[in-house]
């Protein structure tokens, strides 16, 4: 590395630092050491520490697998209302000093941010127990053995190939400020997704599972279901695009309804540029979807188990965005809450739809003619004012007739909005933690059935 760039040298000869995910004490020591170096009016130090292990296989072969361990420190320095952040992964004294000094140097030159409100002082957080020691201490042998539960049955014949991905993350985050705040949270995630395809190229089935605890992932069960789905989806027939009654499996519900999370931002609504804006104000308090729909975020929900604080250290509590079909709450940042005379809520991540009385089986059984969708793919927004999205079905799309899966059908492209869809609701099942986010923030959604969903064209893709 060329020296003219001021390469940090300390990494090469520093003392050995704690490896792996930082404990509360280690994180607190690191935060305090960094805060002490600050000469700014305000400083916020955020630590992310993780050990991520993964394994991939495809075409019945193992492909890449590995482990990455890293800890990054973000220092935000503030003078008056001038602020800037520097991120480093150099935890040596010299590295931390360098990051603090650099963030201070940039902050002094940055224009004022009139929306800056100062740092939070000490807060109280109800803890979230999201840590599984088993997930955090997996071995390479554990992962290879889990992969074999899909590879072995696929290799046993010549009609199937499997492609799968196992990712396990153990991570801690900590935040501290010179105003007295300290927050720490750690969690694990085990995520497994599997696609089985028939070697004739006409069938594909996807199944995923996610939990904090590796031991609660039913690897053999995932393989069995993906293989069954691939076989059942062989030789799809084309049916006309148009408006259909559709049963969304939980993953498909999450793919589309999960996109509503961003639309709950109060500021965009107040500014007149979101789906929840209207002439003269917002739709807060108005019925926006079917009264059976309730959407909420709760870091302590057993299906979610996410961090109890946001990036500023603000405590996160249960927020009900949509209650019985009514827009109940919008998401306020500290600045926007302060301006509008509201209470800050933090973001709208970790979305969950409240359970209904149905099950996937009963939703299918109650359908005279409809389409069962496993998951959706490549969703892209068309209009932020209507939440119109386009995207496609994938990996298991079936025609349901007279309460039974009748046949495999070709995939469709849709152009529709989760708002329209949830106004055309027919039934809701029980929420499960979905896996398509591959270990990202948890999303828990039920299977649902809606009428008049808008499929606009056919896709030849399998």
């Amino acid at each position, binding site marked *: 590395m060329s020296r003219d760039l001021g390469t940090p040298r300390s990494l090469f000869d520093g003392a050995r630092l704690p490896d792996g995910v930082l404990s509360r004490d280690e994180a607190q020591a690191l935060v305090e050491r960094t805060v002490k170096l600050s000469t700014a009016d305000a400083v916020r130090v955020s630590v992310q520490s993780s050990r991520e292990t993964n394994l991939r296989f495809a075409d019945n072969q193992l492909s890449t697998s590995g482990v990455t361990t890293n800890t990054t420190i973000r220092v935000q320095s503030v003078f008056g209302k001038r602020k800037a952040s520097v991120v480093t992964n150099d935890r040596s004294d010299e590295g931390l000093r360098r990051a603090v000094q650099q963030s201070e140097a940039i902050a002094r030159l940055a224009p004022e941010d009139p929306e800056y409100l100062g740092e939070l002082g000490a807060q109280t957080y109800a803890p979230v127990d999201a840590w599984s020691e088993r997930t955090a201490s997996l071995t390479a042998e554990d992962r290879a053995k889990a992969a074999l539960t899909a590879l072995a049955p696929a290799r046993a014949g010549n009609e199937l190939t499997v492609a799968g991905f196992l990712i396990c993350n153990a991570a801690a985050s900590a935040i501290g400020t010179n105003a007295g705040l300290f927050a720490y949270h750690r969690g694990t995630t085990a995520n497994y997704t599997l696609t089985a395809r028939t070697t004739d190229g006409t069938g594909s089935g996807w199944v995923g599972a996610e939990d904090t605890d590796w031991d609660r992932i039913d690897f053999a069960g995932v393989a069995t279901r993906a293989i069954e789905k691939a076989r059942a989806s062989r030789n799809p027939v084309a049916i006309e695009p148009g408006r259909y009654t559709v049963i969304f499996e939980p993953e498909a519900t999450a793919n589309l309804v999960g996109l509503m999370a961003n639309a709950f931002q109060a500021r965009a609504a107040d500014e007149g540029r979101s789906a929840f804006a209207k002439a003269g104000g917002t739709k807060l308090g108005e019925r926006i979807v079917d009264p059976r729909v309730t959407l909420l975020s709760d870091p302590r929900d057993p299906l979610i188990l996410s961090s109890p604080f946001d990036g500023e250290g603000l405590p996160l509590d249960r927020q009900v965005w949509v209650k019985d079909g009514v827009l109940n709450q919008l998401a306020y940042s500290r600045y926007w809450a302060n301006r509008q005379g509201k209470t800050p809520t933090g973001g709208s991540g970790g979305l969950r739809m409240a359970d209904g009385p149905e099950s996937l089986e009963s939703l299918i059984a109650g359908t005279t003619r409809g389409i069962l969708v496993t998951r959706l*793919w490549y969703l892209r927004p068309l209009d932020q004012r209507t939440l119109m999205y386009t995207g496609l079905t994938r990996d298991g799309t079936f025609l349901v007739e007279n309460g039974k899966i009748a046949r495999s059908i070709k995939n469709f492209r849709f152009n529709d909005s989760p708002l329209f869809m949830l106004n055309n609701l027919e039934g809701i099942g029980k929420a499960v933690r979905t896996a398509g986010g591959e270990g990202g923030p948890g999303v828990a959604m039920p299977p649902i059935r809606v009428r008049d969903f808008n499929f606009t064209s056919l896709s030849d893709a399998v």
Partner: protein
Amino acid sequence: MTTRRDFLATGGAAIGALAVGPGLLHAIPRPRPLPALTLDAVVRELMMEALDAAKRAGASWADVRIARNRNNSVQTRERQVTDVVDTDTMGCGVRVLVDGCWGFAATQQLTKAGVGEAAQEAVAIAKANRVARDRRVELAPAPALGERTWRSAYTIDPFTIAIEEKADLLLRANAAALTVPTVRFVNSGLAFVKEERNYANTEGTVTTQDYVRSWVTMSCTAVAPDRSGTAVRGPEVVQPAGRGWEYVLEADIVTNAKVWAAEAAEKLTAKSVEPGRYDLILHPSQLFLTIHESVAHATELDRAMGYEANYAGTSFVAPPSKVLGSLKFGSPLMQVVGNRSEPGALATIGYDDDGVVPEDFPIITNGIFVDYQTNREQAPWLREYYQKTGRPVRSHGCSYAQSWADVAFLRMPNVSLQPGPKDLGWDDLIASTDKGIAMIGRASYSIDQQRYNAQFGAQLCYEIRKGKIVGQVKDAAYQMRTPDFWNTLDLLGGKKSYQLGGTFNDGKGQPGQANAVSHGCPPARFRNATIINTGRTV
């Protein structure tokens, strides 16, 4: 030592007819000579220690990357700066082969003990994986390069520009945009990447590379006075490039901001498109993404072989034995090349993450599909085809990892549609079209997992009647089936109209990794395209 960069500067034309010569990139000035790069002795020693530790633990082959990744971002809205972030991380990634199984481990402990332990962990993973092995991984041969250096085509390092200069530029552009009535919101930002990437493998290749990427974004939002509608121009109004601060200055965003804002204001009152069949003229700022999604992703060999089946998907360009040299992908006008050599393009690099010198190679010739993108693991899968057509079995150099913390795998090079033989430009294509829609700037884009069915929108859509633009329309998108669409290509702009478009954030792989890539193309016309109306009201 002659580097690839020197070779391109002095003898680029000798690379072959497929090389995209600097003459096409008229907007890009030749970079000033920069001081020579040298490999830091400490980094070299750590890389050798990692390779030795891997071999001692039982690896038959290993490579190592030690890199410093820097990012700088300045974000604004209207009259204020919202965020300034500098990121600077370093670390080491070790990849090994043991009995034909891969293992990888990454660490931030840049000490001999730290990289040695990472190497041992990578070997332990590879050994554990043998229980689930079926076929052995074998790498295509690549010559040992010895020590090499390479630097990308930047003149001014954006990391040397003070924050207030960056913020001032953005805030002046925002102010210019806000002078347009109805434009109430403006977001703008600058994002820069600088990486020093060191690589070594057990075959004796040791490379040091230094590259810079720059992206300036701006979105102007017009709001109807009665709040009944909004219209956005942006945020991709300037294409990201593998260049430095000089590129940002050339974009002249303060002058152009008013134009972009006026386009947003005009869009607010545009009529909704009448769906139907139109001849479609795509500007390079829109077409590049269609090339990316429908051509570049479809011709990745790992996708064709099912290696991305669980996430990004497979490809309709498969199986290789049935499509190579025979699939009629598009009209005979269609010449598509892969390269990592176009100056200023985002995937341009001297050496890939398998230690290979990337080559320029044809992907589609006269509309016929002739080759896939490959790396060292996958090139041997095409042995039969290469031998039949008298070509060597070697990697095209498409191996890439987004950082030291990630494992390398197949990522697309710059995949570019070559200009047509006639000296035509944007205006010529419009003048020769009777009933058409012209589209500028990427907007909503979606394509299926085998790259057949796609729907693409644009930031700006214009209706063409009898060779003239008659005004903006809104809610327009084209709906296509990839090979059908490319077979309707009937008119291409010439060399002078060729431009690069690109992104920092092409996602692929599990865990997901971002690849920065550019696609060059001229404006092009597609006959009788299906235009749909995506608008709805609540």
